[in-house]
């Protein structure tokens, strides 16, 4: 008997089920098809303006820095200003995300933009989130041909651009968006929910930022995005 059958048989015997129990199968099928929503905290259930404000506030609470810009075209300048303010070299790593590509990076002559997956020497990565979650100040990113996951983890500084209109009240709305993009039950290779910069409390329970992932997380919220 394979491990698979052995385990499933033991499980069925313990539950008192038979493999051809159609009533149980129906229950499971139904739940997978139409997941009940559960308890959604009131915290994030706000009108758009307050929701965006809550997102910024929650993100700041987990030590992300947050700035708001008026339109996508303002992002490259904001990135350049961030690099200057942190004394970072004028070089960023990013994927070929079409929303980022549409921005006028070339107008900033001194800024080097490297495309493709990150390597160990990159100091700054720039990503575009597909959603934000106001309840917790979380940004949602996913992998794809234009969105390397390494950009989210290898650089010391991670700059994430999120459109204000994509900021949801809760995680469930963000998941629903991914379902809509990829189809029910289908997922990209990686979905990252990122809430603040990397941290560790493993030495004497003292909370320190910048463990293995980015030491700093900078969020740029695009109001007219």
């Amino acid at each position, binding site marked *: 008997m394979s491990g698979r059958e052995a385990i499933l048989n033991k499980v069925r015997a313990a539950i*008192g089920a038979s493999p051809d129990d159609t009533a149980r199968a129906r229950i499971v099928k139904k739940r997978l098809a139409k997941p009940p929503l559960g308890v959604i905290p009131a915290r994030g259930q706000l009108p758009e303006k307050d929701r965006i404000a809550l997102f910024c506030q929650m993100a700041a609470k987990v030590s992300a820095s947050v700035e708001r810009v008026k339109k996508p075209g303002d992002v490259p300048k904001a990135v350049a200003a961030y690099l200057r303010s942190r004394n970072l070299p004028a070089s960023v790593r990013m994927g070929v995300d079409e929303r980022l590509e549409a921005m006028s990076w070339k107008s900033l002559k001194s800024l080097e933009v490297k495309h493709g997956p990150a390597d160990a020497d990159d100091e700054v990565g720039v990503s575009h989130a597909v959603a934000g979650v106001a309840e917790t100040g979380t940004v949602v990113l996913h992998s794809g041909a234009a969105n390397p996951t390494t950009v989210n983890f290898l650089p010391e500084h991670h700059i994430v651009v999120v459109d204000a209109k994509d900021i949801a009240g809760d995680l469930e709305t963000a998941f629903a968006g991914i379902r809509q993009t990829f189809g029910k039950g289908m997922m990209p290779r990686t979905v990252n929910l990122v809430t603040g910069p990397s941290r560790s409390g493993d030495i004497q*329970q003292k909370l320190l930022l910048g463990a293995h992932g980015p030491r700093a997380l900078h969020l740029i919220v695009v109001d007219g995005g």
Partner: protein
Amino acid sequence: MQITSPAFKENSRQALSDAQLQKALGNVRSGFIDKRQNSIDALPEFDALRDSARAIKDHTLAHLDLYLESYEEKVKKAGGYVHWAETAADARNIILEICRSAGARTVTKGKSMITEEIGLNEFLEKEGVRPVETDLGEYIIQLRGEHPSHIIAPAVHLTQEQVEADFRRVHDHLPVARDLSEPESLLAEARRVLRYRYFQADVGITGANFLVAETGSSIIVTNEGNGDLTQILPRVHVVVASIEKILPTLEDVGQILRVLARSATGQDMSVYTTVSTGPRRPGDPDGPEEYHVVLVDNGRSSMLGTEFQDMLRCIRCGACMNHCPVYHAVGGHAYGWVYPGPMGAVLTPSLVGVEKAGHLPNASTFCGRCESVCPMRIPLPKMMRHWREREFSRGLNPATQRYGLRAWAMVAKRPKLYRFATSIGIPLLSFFKGRKGSFHYLPLAGGWTRHRELPAPEGRTFMQQWRDRDVRKQEAVA
């Protein structure tokens, strides 16, 4: 790993006299409790979410076979492989086989209690594959040849000075004069040292906080980012997860995430919640080319349908041990195996046998704090009592305890005998103490008087005095 749970008493005596450990354990008391409380106070729906989380797990366990099948189908559809391991040995062999076919010499590891449970590191090393722990706490204890003393804070038993000494010993290629006096500098050094290990590794092994039947995804919840680097940089990603980690849908994940981080570290949400599904897709610029899931039973199915089934709701947040007075006193290693604290006191006997782990469910004051903070509302004291019942019915507890208890119960079941015995014994005891209020030593009460005075009976029993009062009352009426 070697099980030292039978020596729990000896282990705990050592722990109590270890000054470094006692100093470090102070951080548990101060580190976790207030943070958890603050985050919960800020979420009015917390208790409703606990109920929701419990209902989700109960539903899932009642349909576990079907959700596992549906999960497997989805993983395969996404291009991943699912392996089923009945035992720890099966799991180890499956993982070794994956490493061998990947030609792996080094594997990086994200923090995972299940790989501790199956003793993966020792096994891989013996077979010539080098496992490198990348979570800071796990990395530190791997340097020391130790095992985690806490399920979410593996190095919580260590002080900063001990970590510094270990880094100086092991990182001997770095300048001796470097400053490591602050936790920040220790963290920075670990980050630098581990960075190139990720690129060196051929296989990355992580655990999973959840598996999702709807999508075939595995989810890890972390703060450092090491788990993510572990699973995106090497060519092969192996997920090791026990079968009860499964949840029906992403909505269910959302419910449990809201209670997990709050209960564990007092965060609303951990920094990185990563949902992984299959290997990299055509056109993806990074990510693993192979994705394997090893589903481990190793005793879980034997808990299903028993009085210990509720334990399978556990999401490994650590809140029970963070609030446990016994854990605070002796730390995690005293428990003698992988899982310490109240959850370990229930789980360890299930997984290694109550013959070996019998002390664990007994070493509890039943103060109930673990149950009161458990996000999944697991009745931990009740299940520890169930273990005590099994031990008692199998005659596993010490004979002196059993005979003492039987003798006491014999009297307690017979009210007249009880009245008679206490009305002689108590005044006698009271006579012996004279005008003193307590005993400094009393035969047969050494367990008590070793550390404290034993307050003496006031005089005659309440019942004796009450009967006299009734008699006096009746005389007055007559």
